[in-house]
């Protein structure tokens, strides 16, 4: 009996040791002032027209393209089933907040275009990957957040969403 208790206790301690808190979360609390600090591109986009001045456009696009990174494996076409979950997870991709297209997701928003049948119309998964990673490399100052740039999605996760959007098996294209 005693042994049993000790081993359970040991297991609990072991599991708790495995849990290493996220360094960003662990330290001090972030402040509003820190969070409203802007990068160069955000500053450029902060105008009533939400447009990049023409003289800065080339530099803007070039810089944004430079920020795009690929998965270590080089594979930008992941698992559509994982992608499906990321698409509808408010804490991850949260894509459905603005895009309809998943037939199961009725609470979808309409800020962005409906993605139903996306893979039938668009045939270039790499473009999709790059657009999700950094929308501003294609549509400067777009309302679509730069998922990869901000690390909200990892390259691998973006690859999963690419598969979700392009795969003929995916509900998006059914």
């Amino acid at each position, binding site marked *: 009996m005693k042994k049993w208790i000790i081993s359970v206790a040991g297991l609990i301690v072991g599991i708790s040791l495995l849990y290493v808190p996220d360094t960003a979360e662990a330290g001090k609390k972030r402040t509003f002032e*820190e969070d409203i600090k802007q990068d160069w591109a*955000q500053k450029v*986009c902060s105008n009533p027209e939400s447009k990049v001045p023409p003289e800065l456009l080339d530099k803007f696009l070039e810089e944004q393209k430079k920020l795009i990174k690929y998965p270590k494996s080089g594979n930008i076409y992941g698992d559509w089933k994982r992608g499906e979950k990321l698409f509808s997870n408010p804490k991850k991709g949260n894509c459905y907040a603005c895009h309809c297209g998943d037939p199961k997701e009725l609470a979808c928003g309409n800020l962005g275009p409906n993605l139903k049948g996306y893979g039938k119309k668009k045939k270039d998964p790499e473009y999709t990957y790059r657009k999700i990673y950094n929308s501003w490399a294609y549509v400067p100052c777009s*309302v679509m957040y730069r998922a990869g740039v901000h690390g909200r999605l990892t390259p691998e996760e973006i690859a999963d969403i690419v598969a979700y959007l392009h795969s003929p098996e995916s509900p998006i294209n059914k």
Partner: protein
Amino acid sequence: MVIRYALIALLTSGMLGVSFGEEIKDPAEEVKKQKKLLLEVMGVLPGDLIAEEGKEYFHKKGPNGKSCASCHGKDGKGEKMPLVGAYATMPKYYKDIDKVADLDLRIKSCMEKYLGYDPKKISGKAGRKIIVPLATYVASLSNGMKFNVKLDHPKEKEMFEKGKELWYARVGKMDFSCAMCHDKYGGYRIRLQTLAKPKESKVMRYWPAYRYSKDKMWTMEDRIRGCYKQIKVTKPPFYHWAHVALQMYMAVNSNGGVVEVPGFVR
């Protein structure tokens, strides 16, 4: 209490109806429907009850024996410093605190400076319980009057400029600004939530507002904090300059709008 739970159940079932199945409803119609429903069930709107509560606080003595009414008169209608019409000119520069203040900050400052409240005790949630109803009541004293915020004092101009800057600033991990959702894409939906058009609706005229989806009274500070939370930016603390700045920008854009407080919103 029972009525309150029945109400929440009713509202919740109403909202579930929106979430599952049925097509998306016209948001303005939905607000009207919920308002009617509440009136039928309760006989009174919750926002009006909160304004009443605020009226009680207005006449209640603070730790040093003074009440709001001691300076502003009964029902805020004193000969000196009346509050009728005051909200329609806010945010505003106040000499006694040497600050531009919105409703929340002005009320909190008065409580500390003239009613003897301990700043530590009212800076958090306990303070909100008094300040929100007071803000609702004080704002309602301007009902029927037109919003008329002027930028006469240099600090008011400065606040307006800061607010305008914040309004358009793309910030945080979602790259949002107030303007993206509420100017450019106002009227579109994020999930099922239709984005408000605060400039068009002259938003300051109907805040503080009762939010039926949360069964809570919110001042504009609560609303602004909610927005920042949603775009994943750390919320500015209550009474922070960002609240005053953004409200100054929205108030100038609300000029001409007729005050109708408490508002009733989703």
